[in-house]
């Protein structure tokens, strides 16, 4: 019994040691759309953990913080339900890096041209050199086809 406990503890210790030593380990995080705040337009509403635009006349711009660790962002994504056939659900991923009196910045826009009942993903590439990262998205107005949602966003960093 004792031997078995010692073996289990040993295995856990070795696993912990490997995970600590491997600083380049890939780390993924997923956050609810509720992290996003309304910037302008539309009517901010929530549906469970997602953000929706309850307005049928105005598109809503939201801003979402993209949390990442000290390492680089390998990839990022935003998952949405795009239910408006005439307005694109779009997001731009921004990053900035400030050094002294200088500021570097980057914008990477993505847009969904298709709509439907299924969840869709906007994928962004690596953000090498990023310090703080955020996305600005346009959630289309409600249409006869339904309500558009910003479901969640995710980053994979290392």
């Amino acid at each position: 019994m004792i031997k078995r406990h010692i073996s289990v503890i040993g295995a856990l210790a070795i696993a912990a040691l490997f995970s600590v030593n491997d600083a380049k380990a890939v780390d993924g995080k997923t956050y609810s759309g509720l992290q996003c705040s309304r910037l302008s337009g539309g009517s901010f509403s929530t549906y469970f953990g997602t953000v929706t635009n309850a307005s049928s006349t105005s598109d809503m711009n939201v801003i979402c913080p993209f949390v990442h660790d000290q390492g680089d962002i390998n990839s990022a994504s935003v998952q949405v339900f795009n239910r408006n056939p005439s307005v694109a659900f779009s997001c731009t991923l921004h990053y900035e890096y400030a050094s002294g009196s200088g500021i570097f910045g980057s914008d990477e826009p993505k847009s969904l041209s298709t709509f439907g009942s299924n969840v869709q993903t906007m994928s962004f590439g690596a953000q090498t050199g990023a310090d703080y990262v955020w996305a600005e998205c346009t959630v289309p107005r409600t249409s006869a086809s339904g309500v558009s949602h910003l479901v969640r966003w995710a980053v994979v960093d290392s």
Partner: protein
Amino acid sequence: MTPSKTMDTRRSGSIPAETTLDIERKVRRRHAVTAILGITLAGGLVASLYQTRRAAGQIERATGELASLRSGLSRVEQESRRAPLIVQVPSRAPDVSVEPTARANAVAAPVADSAAAPETHAPLSNEQIHERRRLANERRTELCSDAHASETRDNQWATQAEQSIMTAHAGPEFQPLRVTTDCRSTICRIEFSYTDPVTGPEAARKFLATPAWKGSQFYYLDQEHQKGFSYLARESAQLPTVDRATLSD
């Protein structure tokens, strides 16, 4: 019959043979139980001693490993303290009139040295992360500059794009800015400067936050020298990005 016999026995004072045997059996049983208890206790003591010694050995080994880890950590801390001394030589605010290619190359080696040291994948210090990000952005500036320079001018698109940029930033909020554009086939390079230290920075920030169209953008704002640049890609085109593997060369 039996009761009278018992009475007789008591009277005579002798113990019957059966009773003597019972007593002997009981005594033997007690001895056996005592022996088993003794053996069990002794075994427990031996096992406990063994475990204690083993634990002591493990603690000793763990202490050794801890000492080794501490010395490794101290080495990493020393390296991270040394790193900024090496990389702070070049100016931190690049002159935007010249692409920071040379600076990126100049700092590449020392940063790579300090970052590559940990073959053990020791975590980077905050200073190393900061330098790595600065290097990445300077490299991207270089990549965008090269990509823009290598393009030939698509007159139709370039003229239209330059006009869009000027029109989009014709409002009074952009008045403090002096803007020049150079569009090619998929990338525009936009340079701007200002002289008013109060309204200029705000106008520059707004300018960068509202590109003329939704395209991939990379920019640098030098607040000290009151100027900056932006590379704006044609819609559906992409600006070059930095391969992170090249940062540890």
